[in-house]
């Protein structure tokens, strides 16, 4: 996997707004964005030339540290496909996917997944696949030279594709480019036909070794990327972001990295914090923290992104955001997948927890409720509903055996009296015996009521009560039988 535009895209990821941007390496243009090239900027140009041709261009000095961090973030993200990822020369990454092919639905599918993940992170990528790592690396570097054949499985076809590649692609041969051109050796195939001993004497041992590794004639050894013990990733945003939803694009990049980290550590996330940093220096504003807690540990990108989206939708930013930081604060070991042969028709309890979290993230905890009845005669106390994300399932308490209506009014409606009868739309007839509720003297919410079922001229049923506090008697409507 080769990232040809890494120096540029570490400043301006693909998802940021297009604009002329130039990265200089020692006062020479190293990379320029498409808009800058259109304006006339060419590679190797000096700073002065760039500023004359395209005065509005954003000019950056090449930053090796920044590139390294970006490459690390790509590596972390790719860890979700294979635990074996290694850095290679010239902004490249090597992945051993031998063991992952079946898990991700074959070569083609894995290719597509890895490509889209890196594109999501905001980097242009050239991918190739070959039986040897060095061969794959050469193919990715070659880019347009290798044509459409980027996925090779058999050694013979790899040799066939490698032979016509220009030999200066091998990094160790770069200093000997002119000499090789002088003797008419242009492709890797030509290079292999040269006498090995002479080549070794003139260009050093490394050339032969690299060549042998590419053609599968020497073993390859790698230093696999090691993941940190705790996850904390930071992202400097290319522009200031004023609205919370704009943060989402940057956050997705961090979430992708976190998922790679979680996968390779076999952990699931329970709680994470998104820190949005504002202006530093003199007008420093303290960063905004967004803490996301999950009822059920998860590691799926889609779920985490949806939760974050809803939470960000409710957030109002006090100041523009210039950087993002994501920290995994609580993780638990990943639960093994279910072993049951047939999936349950109603999904798993974890699926339901995800639904609850999603609803609560947008609507607030108080708006997603489950019943938690209390053994009390007062209907408004008995009918308790608790927020679903935190509520534990409780056993059904002993309830009054009298009939209760399904709808209860939030606050009882006082009824006017007409002809000695309560009136609600029409005169109400009381039906059946009264249910007397007198309780609550112990907690200051005393109720002294007689409940009746009542019916108006329309055949609908009401639940009304007569309050007997004090001298006068008042009638209230408290429920509807549905």
């Amino acid at each position, binding site marked *: 996997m080769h990232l040809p535009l890494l120096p540029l895209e570490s400043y301006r990821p693909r998802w940021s707004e297009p604009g002329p941007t130039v990265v200089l390496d020692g006062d020479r243009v190293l990379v320029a964005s498409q808009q800058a090239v259109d304006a006339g900027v060419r590679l190797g140009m000096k700073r002065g030339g760039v500023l004359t041709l395209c005065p509005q261009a954003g000019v950056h000095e090449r930053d090796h540290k920044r590139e390294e961090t970006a490459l690390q973030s790509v590596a972390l993200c790719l860890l979700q496909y294979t635990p074996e990822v290694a850095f290679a020369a010239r902004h490249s990454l090597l992945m051993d996917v031998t063991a992952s092919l079946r898990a991700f639905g074959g070569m083609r599918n894995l290719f597509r997944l890895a490509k889209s993940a890196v594109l999501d992170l905001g980097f242009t990528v050239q991918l190739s696949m070959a039986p040897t790592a060095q061969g794959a690396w050469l193919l990715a570097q070659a880019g347009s030279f290798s044509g459409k054949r980027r996925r090779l499985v058999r050694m013979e076809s790899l040799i066939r594709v490698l032979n016509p590649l220009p030999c200066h692609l091998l990094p160790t041969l770069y200093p000997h480019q002119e000499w090789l051109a002088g003797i008419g050796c242009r492709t890797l195939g030509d290079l292999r036909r040269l006498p090995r001993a002479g080549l070794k004497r003139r260009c050093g041992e490394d050339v032969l070794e690299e060549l042998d590794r590419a053609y599968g004639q020497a073993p390859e050894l790698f230093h696999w990327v090691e993941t940190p013990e705790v996850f904390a990733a930071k992202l400097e945003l290319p522009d200031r972001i004023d609205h919370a939803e704009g943060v989402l694009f940057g956050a997705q990049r961090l979430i992708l990295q976190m998922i790679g980290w979680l996968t390779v550590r076999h952990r699931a996330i329970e709680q994470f914090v998104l820190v949005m940093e504002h202006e530093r220096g003199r007008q420093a504003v303290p960063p905004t923290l967004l803490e996301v807690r999950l009822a059920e540990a998860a590691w799926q990108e889609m779920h985490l992104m949806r939760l974050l989206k809803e939470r960000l939708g409710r957030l109002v930013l006090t100041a523009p955001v210039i950087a993002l930081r994501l920290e995994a604060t609580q993780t638990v070991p990943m639960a093994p997948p279910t072993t049951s042969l047939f999936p349950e028709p109603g999904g798993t309890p974890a699926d339901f927890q995800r639904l609850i979290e999603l609803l609560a993230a947008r609507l607030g905890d108080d708006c997603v409720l489950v019943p938690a009845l209390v053994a009390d005669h007062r209907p408004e106390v008995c009918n308790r509903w608790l927020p679903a994300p935190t509520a534990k399932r409780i056993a059904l308490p002993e309830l009054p055996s009298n009939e209760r*209506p399904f709808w209860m009014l939030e606050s009882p409606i006082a009824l006017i009296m007409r002809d000695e009868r309560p009136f609600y739309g029409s005169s109400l007839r009381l039906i059946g015996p009264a249910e007397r509720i007198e309780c609550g003297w112990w907690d200051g919410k005393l109720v002294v009521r007689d409940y009746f079922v009542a019916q108006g001229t329309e055949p*609908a049923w009401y639940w009304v009560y007569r309050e007997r506090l004090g001298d006068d008697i008042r009638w209230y409507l408290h429920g509807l039988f549905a």
Partner: protein
Amino acid sequence: MGFVHSSATASSAASVAAAVPDVWRANQLASYRTSTVATGHVQLDRELPDGGWPSRTLIELLIQQPGIGEMRMLLPALRRLAHRRIALVQPPHLPQAAAWACDDFPIGNLLWVKTQRSADALWAAEQILRNGTCGALVFWQTHVRHESLRRLHLAAQGSDMVLWMIRPIAAMEDASPAPLRLALRPAAGGIRVDIVKRRGPRRDNPLTLPLDDMPAVHPSFTESDHALVDQHASAAVAARVVPSALV
């Protein structure tokens, strides 16, 4: 050729229908081609295609006002679905779970979603349908645009849930993508059901479903009984004494 002949004779119409399931005759009830849940009311089952509430379908119930027995009508079907969760989105009043606890309804499986804006309610309904862990969704909405209804119907088709949408009866005149629409009005001792739209022949005269468990529906109850009860109650008020048996 013989096949065509037999279809011409009315007597063997049933055998044709059995042999060619794709042929629908205008006087027959069609099929929703999904699983159905019996409504628990024999009269209603007879009138609905496939004999019950269809799943994966937007069912519209147009009610005159809340509290006319609409939940009692749904209760038998909800009880069949209650092994999974039942979501109530934006109900018009507080649902009193104790009302169903007496009927051995697993009320722990109820989920009440309150929303402030109708856009939130539609979003919540769509998420619940998409998640698919609930068995049924009852969704109250007063004003809803035609596109939103279509969207809900599409979301319902992707799930295996039963979706009832409860709207005011004034919406009866509006066009709707729902394949099944019923108008509900109160009736003595039950509920009056007008089938506004179904896959099948039109039915003009309404159906009256008896809801036995609506309160105090007693055949022996007459007007004189009511008068007596009323008198008795007011006498009790005057004396400020209620027989202790009621306490």
